[in-house]
């Protein structure tokens, strides 16, 4: 399995530049945000609003800042999934599947390596985000470390779930189909969220005026609250799903027409 991991490392090495640029951009944005919230435009707007009569809008500034910053922090995890697809496509382009089927490695190991690589890439993304969050924590009280890291964990869980579906599609229908698997994963999650919050979404479409604004705000804060306090569970739930996906991938590999 170490040999396959090394081969994938050689594959990824060519793509790490893109991932590195994503991480660097995220870091720069984080630093700029921190500077802005302390002494820049964000701090200035906040002060002006806080001193005005409309203090409610002022309270929104840190909240919106956190959302924007969180979005950027999720980029390394999102980019990590692309790396897995690169490896899949590279194997397909080279017809490496034929070679892999002749190596003294079991199907469990061959499929396991791909899932392990996915785990490693997500773990590295978590580590990068943890460092960035520490940086944010050291410079301001804007984002509590544990709460924010739970959002990253939740997104890691979502990525792991979508990547599992993508890998299943890749093994069943070929490397090109992995992207459709990823899309299906996203659709499944959206449907699950809609079903879980159906009454709230229905209300969102019936209320008007200021109530609508409040309703949207309530939705955002509710989602943020869920992710900040239960994000770790989202990630934990994705682990057995990935495990089941792994076993199913091994099963598919044994029954597929031609070598997988």
């Amino acid at each position, binding site marked *: 399995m170490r040999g396959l991991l090394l081969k994938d490392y050689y594959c990824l090495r060519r793509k790490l530049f893109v991932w590195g640029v994503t991480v660097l951009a995220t870091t720069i944005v984080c630093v700029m945000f921190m500077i802005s919230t302390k002494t820049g435009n964000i701090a200035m707007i906040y002060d002006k609003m806080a001193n005005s009569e409309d203090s409610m809008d002022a309270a929104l500034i840190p909240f919106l800042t956190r959302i924007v910053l969180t979005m950027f922090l999720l980029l390394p995890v999102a980019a990590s999934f692309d790396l897995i697809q690169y490896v899949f496509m590279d194997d397909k382009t*080279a*017809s490496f599947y034929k070679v892999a089927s002749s190596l003294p490695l079991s199907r469990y190991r061959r499929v396991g390596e791909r899932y392990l690589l996915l785990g490693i890439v997500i773990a590295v993304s978590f580590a990068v985000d943890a460092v960035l969050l520490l940086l944010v924590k050291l410079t301001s009280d804007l984002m509590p470390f544990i709460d924010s890291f739970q959002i990253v964990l939740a997104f890691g869980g979502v990525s792991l779930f979508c990547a599992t579906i993508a890998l299943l599609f890749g093994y069943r229908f070929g490397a090109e189909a992995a992207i459709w698997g990823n899309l299906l994963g996203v659709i499944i999650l959206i449907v699950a969220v809609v079903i879980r919050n159906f009454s709230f979404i229905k209300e969102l479409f019936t209320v008007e005026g200021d109530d609508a604004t409040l309703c949207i705000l309530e939705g955002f804060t509710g989602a943020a609250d869920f992710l900040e306090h239960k994000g770790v569970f989202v990630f934990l739930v994705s682990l057995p799903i990935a495990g089941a996906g792994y076993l199913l991938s091994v099963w598919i590999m*044994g029954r597929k027409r031609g070598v997988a």
Partner: protein
Amino acid sequence: MDNIVLEVKNITKDYGDFKLDNVSFSVPRGTVCGFIGQNGAGKTTTIQLILDAITRDSGEIILFGQEVIPGRSHTLREDIGVVFDEMGFHEFLTPAQLDEIMKRIYKNWNSETYFGYLKRFSLPSKKRCGNFSRGMRMKLQIAVALSHGARFLIMDEPTSGLDPIVRNEMIQIFREFVVEEDHTILLSSHITGDLEKIADEVVFIDGGKIVLAGNKDEILEKHAIIKCKKEDADRVSNSLVVDKEISSFGAEMLVNDRDVCEKLYPGMVIEPATLEEIMIHYVNRAKSHSGRAE
């Protein structure tokens, strides 16, 4: 049984639109076994089943005296070197990086042997294999296949698309490999000329079924081509004729017992058949039989 490296017994694999049907043959130790058949005959599927890359529906495969159990016999591949019709290594990899990868996969990987082959084949170790010619790519595959102490080489169309000089060079390498007593080769190809040069045994597959299997020299000695006038063609007993082609110039037929034909039809021109002619006539016979069945 110790003399048999590979024994395939009644294996079946049904894809719906193609079926590998009750395939049986064996490969004796220390021989080169030519696995011939036209494209789509079932050669690659059989090889994939032997390698346990796909799961068979029924039958038994015995490799080095051990049964290949689907999904559990990967360790047997330590002793097998495999060469495919296309390289299969990523184009950005260099032969030196392949050494790093393979030594972490094969227990008996020998870097010294590998770099020795690279030197012998004039393959640069630091150059990306995407820049290699087709011949160089095949040689790289052979270098990998021969550098982990394999006792059995399985090759799937390794010489297709290569120029005659490189093909000859590769056949020389295969000959050297089988000089060692316990080394065996299963060489799948539709280029029968190469197999005539090197094979000891021949297994001929067509439409997912084994048509002929046995010692190459015996098969060549047994079969013959009879060339005669159209009106004489019917004189030859149908039980001896594998297939016949009748044109305005005369008749040409493949017969399955040369000695008997020489005794029974002394006036006819009876010539030795090549593997290619044998293959073509057997395929034609199968086509005409299936045509009749339809």
